[in-house]
């Protein structure tokens, strides 16, 4: 195998696959990227068995062939090569690769291509197209709400299903860690073709890899779900994410319907106050207290070691005086998903779930369970 490629292009393609290659070290070959030259193309693949990324890069190809190279090391080398000359990569005996540019030479030990796990099948049928920006925004709004506990299978994923809004077809993402939940809808022309009768549970990391793909430039991404994988493609890059085989909790059941105590606050002011009192909130639990009375909302925190913080903001609130505790981080994550000027909090009492949502935009909803603070 040998090929010549522009240095920036090589750095781009290796950076693109890095996130997946680095993670696990249980099988040495998984920290490697599989390089294959066919025709005038180089494909680079990385896999952790859960997520597979494949990038295609046109190159000046010499001999076809393939080899697995340590992904991190290869990128490190690509970055330090001299700028002025194109990079030549050539197989040598015993899975060694020679990388050269100008007068610089590197010899890098690889592994035989056969050791690399087989590629999952590319899904057949017609993919569904969704705007990259829409996908990015959906993912951004819910990702923080998924559990980062990987052993908690059913909560470590993000549910994707067809939204039940009347206004056109929507892709809905839902995430929860058992203490709070976020639900976001985004327009997706014919998502019904993909998720009409089913929902898929996609691991958080997989959603983030697809989000990176969406962020790589303007344009839409193609989605396809097979029995086992969610497949996403954009430009020269393809991502397979293995679906979680677990039951996501029935989230509709925890969306409260009788939360009649409504408070409206300015979004930016609320975000700022939360950030301020967070400084004094105890580590780990990040507890903050919200006290509603009349037209005022007081937000406070108490650190057993350091002291207290207290701040006030204006609120539209009609109900009786109420004190309610929360993990302040949960509130901050909820407010982050809201772009509108006004945030509405819908409450029932100090021990039942609270809804945080934009005043008008119906495409986002966060539910946060209070924290009992005595």
């Amino acid at each position, binding site marked *: 195998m040998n090929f010549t490629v522009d240095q920036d292009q090589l750095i781009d393609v290796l950076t693109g696959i890095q996130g997946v290659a680095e993670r696990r070290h*249980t099988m040495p070959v998984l920290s490697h990227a599989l390089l294959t030259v066919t025709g005038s193309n180089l494909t680079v693949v990385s896999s952790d068995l859960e997520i597979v990324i494949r990038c295609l890069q046109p190159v000046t190809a010499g001999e076809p062939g393939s080899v697995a190279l340590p992904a991190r090391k290869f990128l490190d080398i690509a970055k330090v090569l001299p700028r002025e000359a194109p990079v030549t990569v050539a197989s040598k005996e015993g899975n060694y690769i020679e990388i050269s540019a100008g007068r610089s030479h590197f010899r890098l030990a690889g592994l035989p291509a056969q050791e690399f796990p087989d590629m999952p099948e590319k899904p057949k049928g017609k993919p569904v197209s969704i705007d990259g920006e829409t996908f990015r925004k959906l993912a951004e709004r819910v990702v923080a709400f998924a*559990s*980062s*506990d*990987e*052993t*908690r*299978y*059913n909560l470590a994923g993000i549910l994707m299903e067809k939204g039940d809004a009347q206004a056109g077809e929507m892709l809905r993402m839902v995430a*929860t*860690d*058992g*203490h*709070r*939940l976020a639900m976001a809808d985004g327009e997706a022309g014919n998502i019904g073709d993909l998720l009409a009768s089913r929902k898929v549970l996609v691991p958080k990391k997989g959603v983030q890899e697809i989000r990176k793909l969406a962020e790589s430039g303007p344009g839409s991404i193609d989605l396809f779900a097979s029995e086992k994988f969610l497949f996403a493609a954009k430009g020269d890059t393809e991502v397979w994410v293995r679906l979680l085989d677990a*039951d*996501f*909790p*029935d989230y509709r*059941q*925890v969306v409260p319907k009788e939360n009649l105590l409504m408070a409206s606050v300015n979004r930016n002011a609320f975000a700022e106050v939360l950030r301020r009192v967070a400084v004094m909130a*105890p580590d*780990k*639990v990040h*507890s903050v207290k919200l006290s509603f009375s009349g037209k005022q909302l007081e937000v406070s925190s108490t650190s*057993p070691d350091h002291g207290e913080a207290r701040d006030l903001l204006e609120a539209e609130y009609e109900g009786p005086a109420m004190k309610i*505790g929360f*993990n302040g981080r949960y509130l901050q994550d909820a407010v982050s998903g809201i772009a509108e000027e006004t945030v509405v909090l819908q409450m029932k009492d100090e*021990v039942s*779930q609270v809804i945080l949502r934009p005043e008008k935009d119906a495409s986002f909803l966060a*539910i946060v*369970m*209070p*924290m*009992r*603070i*005595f």
Partner: protein
Amino acid sequence: MTEARRSILHLDLDAFYASVEVLDRPELRGKPVIVAGSERRGVVTAASYEARGFGVRAAMPTATARRLCPQGVFLPVRMSRYREVSEKVFAIYRRFTPLVEPLSIDEAFLDVTGCEKLFGSAEEAARKVKAAVREETGLIVSAGVASNKFLAKIASDLGKPDGLIAVPPGAERGFLDPLPAGKLWGVGKVTEETLRRRGILTIRELRGLSLEEMARSYGAHGEHLYRLARGIDDRPVETEQEAKSVGHEETYEHDLRKRGAMRRELLSLADRVSARLRRHGVKGRTITLKVKYHDFAQATRAATLADPTDDGGTIYRCSVVLLEETEAGPRPVRLLGISVSKLSAGLAALPPAGMEQLPLFGRPLPERKDPIRPADPGKRERLNRTVDRIRGKFGPKGIVPGALPAESPPKK
């Protein structure tokens, strides 16, 4: 080689849970106070000395305790309150020396070697610790003072309640001589019985056996007993921060080939590791499974939980999930190990007192089936404490998981 002489204190709070209850409700002073599981099948967790006068003991069924002491004041366990008080006491200990090794919620070793200028002799230091604890918390602590951990612990035990016994340098043997052999760490019911049949009742008599005889009869453990009987114990006082992980592994005489047998061994390992975590008062978040195959090739798999745990069931279920990710089974296995890391201790391992994040999905929902965590962590925690108490009284075999046979396969 002569080691510099050390000064070790063993401090043990008297009837701790019951004393905290009396502290919080002074009208109970002088009454038989019994802290016990409130359910019909509960057991006694702690009894005040007044209650002990009626024959009430820890680990006894609550029903029996009620029969023995109908006038007793029976109170439910309030673990978070005991933790809070325990933290206060440990903070006092740490004023005397940073070398504090917690053994449990109410027991600790302190190394006060070289503190003579500050506190006087080790015995004097113990007296000061006792006074400080009494003055600042109202609790009574029994102390043992000696040149090593083993002797210090025996000494504090002998002086209870409100004891202070010091074993002066040079007096170690005389101190040990009259004590029953069962007082030695690691002499359980079985060893004690075999010793008794050889006519050995006291530590003095045990010392009559040579190192060879001890090793022949009791293996490596025999050497350990040989040293203890001479009052020799070099183990340092280890503060909890030093331990990065708590683990245990086992090499099997015959390679394990069946997943079922491996799971049983994992249960036994998880049970031991969790007991040690609890003894050290720490919880860990990362669970690592180590598998050595018959050809000595080795694999490790790890998972990190959202919350730290010291529960054997949780550690077991997690390691079973990890076992699925190895080639164990198709490849025969000669060694299994479990370790728990990312440890946090004391208050850090607990949600702060008086705060509770409420769950979004209530318990009755069938979706809340969790393959790893216990359904009711609070109940699990109480169960684990009870198991620890029972083992404290009847030894490690006093209570074992039902799935574990009385005898495990022979170890190498």
